[in-house]
């Protein structure tokens, strides 16, 4: 019997704690509530975006309801419908993919709640939404163009390799297109590119890249569709004696897209030649501004397609533009935090 009573007490205590926990934030009258639903935080880019969005919204005295869908489209669907039932004023979503984005936008439209889609665009433009998206093709092309320029100084025919993202993701398709456009502009410089699928997964990348380099060890030009894969590239190149900074005869011309802190560090050390930078802070601010404006002006189904032009950070323009790269800024913030 004593055990039973202790059990009941534990339960009661836990319930009290739970209720206490829920009641932490009280509603202020007239405060805007925004639901921020994301698919998962797989890469540094998403983590940084999550941080930028939640912090900025809270700084503007906007209540944020965060929802992580754990890469499950149906869960995201349910989460956003629940948020709608809770009468949120607006929704910012990083969707699992373009198709489910479209379905969810439909739900928001029906309920008359403005919705913004961050960085991963819906499959088509059939339903109104605020969308901010990087011009992936252009950014990738710029980065690869600089890499080609660096390669042309070596006076040899290059063997290029591209790490392709997930083909279900519009962004990775555009990045691949950008890569090809830049490479095809210099037929005299490049042999036929080798494609290595990554599915946006580190382990897959490692295995596939290792295999590719066994078959064609002469690869000397690598473009990754996302910066978060540099550690895997290093892990494969280093044992082959090919992980060398710029200027070394064994240097592999290296570049990517995203602009995270690893990429910044590697550029400073000379391993990476160029990276296409999505302007994360621009994108975060643009979607929030557009959404808050829509809420305040009473628009229910606002529609706007905001393009982040981005830019390519190269060994050449690094001194001037490094601070425009989010990875670099995060790194500096961290360092100054540590200094304090």
């Amino acid at each position, binding site marked *: 019997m004593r055990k039973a009573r202790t059990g009941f007490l534990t339960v009661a205590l836990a319930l009290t704690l739970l209720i206490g926990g829920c009641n932490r934030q009280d509603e202020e009258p007239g405060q805007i509530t925004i639901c921020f639903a994301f698919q998962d935080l797989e890469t540094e880019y998403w983590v940084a975006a999550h941080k930028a969005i939640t912090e900025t919204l809270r700084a503007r005295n906007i209540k944020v309801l*965060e929802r992580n869908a754990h890469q499950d*489209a149906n869960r995201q669907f*349910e989460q956003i419908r629940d948020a709608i039932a809770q009468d949120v004023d607006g929704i910012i979503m990083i969707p699992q993919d373009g198709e489910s984005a479209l379905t969810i936008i439909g739900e928001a439209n029906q309920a008359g709640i403005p919705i913004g889609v961050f960085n991963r665009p819906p499959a088509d433009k059939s339903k109104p939404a605020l969308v901010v998206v990087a011009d992936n093709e252009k950014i990738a092309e710029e980065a690869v163009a600089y890499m080609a320029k660096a390669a042309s100084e070596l006076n040899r025919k290059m063997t290029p390799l591209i790490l392709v993202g997930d083909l279900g993701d519009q962004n990775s398709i555009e990045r691949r297109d950008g890569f090809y456009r830049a490479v095809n502009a210099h037929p005299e410089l490049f042999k036929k590119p080798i494609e290595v699928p990554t599915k946006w997964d580190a382990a897959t990348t490692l295995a596939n890249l290792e295999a590719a380099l066994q078959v064609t060890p002469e690869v000397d030009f690598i473009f990754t569709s996302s910066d978060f894969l540099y550690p895997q590239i290093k892990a494969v190149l280093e044992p082959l004696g090919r992980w060398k900074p710029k200027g070394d005869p064994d240097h592999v011309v290296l570049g990517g897209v995203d602009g995270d802190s690893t990429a910044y560090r590697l550029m400073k050390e000379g391993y990476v030649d160029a990276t296409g930078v999505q302007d994360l802070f621009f994108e975060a601010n643009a979607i929030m501004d557009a959404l808050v404006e829509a809420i305040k002006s009473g628009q229910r189904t606002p529609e706007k397609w905001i393009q982040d032009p981005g830019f390519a950070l190269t060994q050449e323009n690094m001194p001037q533009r490094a601070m425009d790269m989010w990875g670099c800024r995060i790194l500096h913030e961290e360092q100054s935090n540590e200094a304090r």
Partner: protein
Amino acid sequence: MKLDNTLLRWPKAVVLSNHFILVLTVLFFLVMWGIYPHMAGRRNLANLLSNTWPLLALVLGQMFVLIVGGIDLSQTSIMAVTSVLGAMVMATSLEPTRFAHNPLWGVLISEQGGWLSGSPWAVPVAVLSFVVAGASIGLLNGLAVAKLRMPPFMVTLVTMSFFSGLAIYLTQSENVRPLPDSFIAIGKGTLGPISPPMLIVVVLALLAFVVLDRSILGRWFYAVGQNAETAKISGVPTKRVIVLAYAFSGLCAAVGAILYSARLEAGRPTLGRNLLLDVIGAAVIGGISLFGGKGKVLWAVYGVLFFVVLDNSLNKMPLDFYSIDIIKGAVILLAALLDALRTRLSLYHAPLAGAP
């Protein structure tokens, strides 16, 4: 002892009753309602209900397999593969840029969409192929378990891996859409309290109830789960019963796949990828034993309600996402703890109830 008895009589009655999880869910709901008035809003209640149906379909199927002492890990991959196949039958158009490298391009699908794109038969045939494919995969599981005597965990782990891989291969990771409007309408629950998913799953649940509670077959399911040897000697066709349980589980997974695909408006190769824990979790919280021989339709309903209300209320909390999973885990643990406590209490009472 006497004081205890009178003081604890009411909680004891509740704790020991079969409806304990329902009581717990309702209490939880009421507390959350106190904090978030939106909980009982019309729209939220509609959400709650519409989230209940597809999950319930899966749990019902899982329950049959659990009752015969097995486990079906392949339900979610059955969902994925049937979702993709069904969609490939009825998709109204497909972009060549995304599907041209598909192994079925030109065979089953083309620029005009799926196999029966545009035909009035597209949706009925698609629905039929969902169900037939799901039940067949379940049948395969059942045959491997019953006839080849392979351990259920292994069998369904293998089918899980195989069919989720197949779903991704068949689509090359692309979602198959758009689907016909009449199919999408199956998934919508906005016509007041009665919606197509509700009708479908309530019929499924009634069927499950009649079979389990009223038919000879039902008694056989329990007998096989409680003691397969006794059942066999007593003239129960144990193998047939096991095969049927898995086939029904596959069929239920297909029904779940229909509802989820319709609601997400696409055939998705990753459909339900993370759902398995919710399915088995709901079944177990409802009181369905992992060791076989125990389970009721009503318990499945309670377990699902518990999970749905929990998820819904977590979606209301203004917590950062790091802590939400911790709270979800804590609440499930709490419920499991209470249930263990309940089992202990009922053990206390066993000598009394059991005295001849």
